[in-house]
């Protein structure tokens, strides 16, 4: 199957000395495409800068104005984690636009798998605030472009951190089902099982927190038992993936124990959620160990494309099976309480 990727864009200007969210990450992700040896089965689209109206489906106009002005004034630190430079505004608009370009090409071809390799990442970015290394919420901007056309979008987020920005943007939107697996406790501190969506979208947010050391078998059980029945019921017309690879065991940001083999299995699982060809796209989020990032991107894409490459063995035997049990329980209690409150008209 064909891989539709965004064309490279010069992101060297979005950099801060010693910061882990750095331009080398993009070289590692692009290196993974080389490892796949796709030849004419790789098609690149763009570059494309997202327009203001496309960004405003997700972000407040005042935030976009401030961010643009802040960058053009020379940039600096937005918070203790998140920086912007003079070049960041254009680079962030490209990161957001890349997803739109890839989706446009998938729609045109009605075939292929999308891969959006950009930085900065996006899933922590809120409607009116950048945080957690993220400036614009790239995957949310892409999902919102699809829901605007009546599509039903599943977002699977396997970055090691909870995608608080994406969750909050679609909190009350019944056309988006957000599923996150993440280490907990960990930044940003959200993503509890009882966070299930707003009144208009009860159950459309699924959080599967995992303890430090959790292995692929635990994550797979969580997806199978907690998320899959809801996904089947939701019947998405598109599947977008916040593919963060900081959940790899070698990543310096956290302590999950996934291997590239686990990402290969995940790549296959999410492909099965897509209703047909040309309806699946991966968006790069975190991943700060360059070697692990490269092999994990390659493993994910290879299995989604049905190509064979070598990767590490899937992991198993780590802690977290009891966490899955308690998550199932907590979620069903939260749903019951919310539905009762909704029936009485006092849930928000």
């Amino acid at each position: 199957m064909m891989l539709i990727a965004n064309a490279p864009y010069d992101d060297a200007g979005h950099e801060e000395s010693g910061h882990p969210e750095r331009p080398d990450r993009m070289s590692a992700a692009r290196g993974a495409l080389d490892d796949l040896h796709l030849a004419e089965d790789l098609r690149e689209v763009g570059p494309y800068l997202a327009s203001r109206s496309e960004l405003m489906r997700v972000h407040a106009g005042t935030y976009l104005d401030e961010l643009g002005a802040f960058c053009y004034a020379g940039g600096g630190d937005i918070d203790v984690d998140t920086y912007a430079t003079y070049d960041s505004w254009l680079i962030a608009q490209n990161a957001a636009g890349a997803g739109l370009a890839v989706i446009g090409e998938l729609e045109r071809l009605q075939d292929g798998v999308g891969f959006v390799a950009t930085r900065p990442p996006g899933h922590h970015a809120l409607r009116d605030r950048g945080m957690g290394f993220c400036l614009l919420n790239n995957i949310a901007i892409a999902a919102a472009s699809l829901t605007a056309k009546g599509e039903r979008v599943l977002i699977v987020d396997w970055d090691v951190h909870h995608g608080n920005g994406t969750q909050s943007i679609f909190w009350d939107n019944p056309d988006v089902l957000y599923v996150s697996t993440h280490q907990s406790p960990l930044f940003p501190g959200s993503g509890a099982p009882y966070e299930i969506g707003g009144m208009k979208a009860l159950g459309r947010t699924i959080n599967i927190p995992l303890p430090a050391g959790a292995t692929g078998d635990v994550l797979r059980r969580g997806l199978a038992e907690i998320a899959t029945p809801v996904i089947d019921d939701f019947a998405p017309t598109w599947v977008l993936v916040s593919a963060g690879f900081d959940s790899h065991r070698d990543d310096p940001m956290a302590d999950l124990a996934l291997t590239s083999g686990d990402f290969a299995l995940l790549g296959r699982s999410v492909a099965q959620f897509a209703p047909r060809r040309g309806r699946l796209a991966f968006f790069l989020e975190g991943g700060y160990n360059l070697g692990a990032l490269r092999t994990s991107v390659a493993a994910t894409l290879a299995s989604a494309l049905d190509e064979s490459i070598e990767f590490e063995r899937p992991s198993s035997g780590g802690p977290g099976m009891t966490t899955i049990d308690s998550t199932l329980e907590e979620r069903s209690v939260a749903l019951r309480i919310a539905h009762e409150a909704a029936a009485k008209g006092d849930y928000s």
Partner: protein
Amino acid sequence: MKTLETIAVGFDDSPDSRAAVRWAFSLASRVEANVVIVHAVGLMDRFEGRDDAPAIEESLHRLCDDCDFERERVRVHISNGDACSVLLRAVDDPIAADLLVVGSRGQGKHPGLLLGSTSLELAEHASVPVVIVPTL
């Protein structure tokens, strides 16, 4: 009006946040409230393997001594997240803060910058009163 039982203060050991703690102590003394010092652990803390807890404890001891505030009435709450979300969550159980107090700028913040301003974000989203303490 509900009595003021718990005051949560955002603290990153910056001069601004120390001013906020001093102000919270003086209010807490007058209304016999408890104080919870809230410190956010971000992505970079984790990446750089920093453990801020000992420095925060030490700084807090000094502030208690300076302000003649009983150490037993102060708790430290260290939590993962950005400063704004961590403080907003302090309104919920188990902290259940009735009032949030912050300095006008956090660590390394540019004066006058709206973007990423914890105090302004809090004022917009908090469900309890927010006090922004200026640094003199």
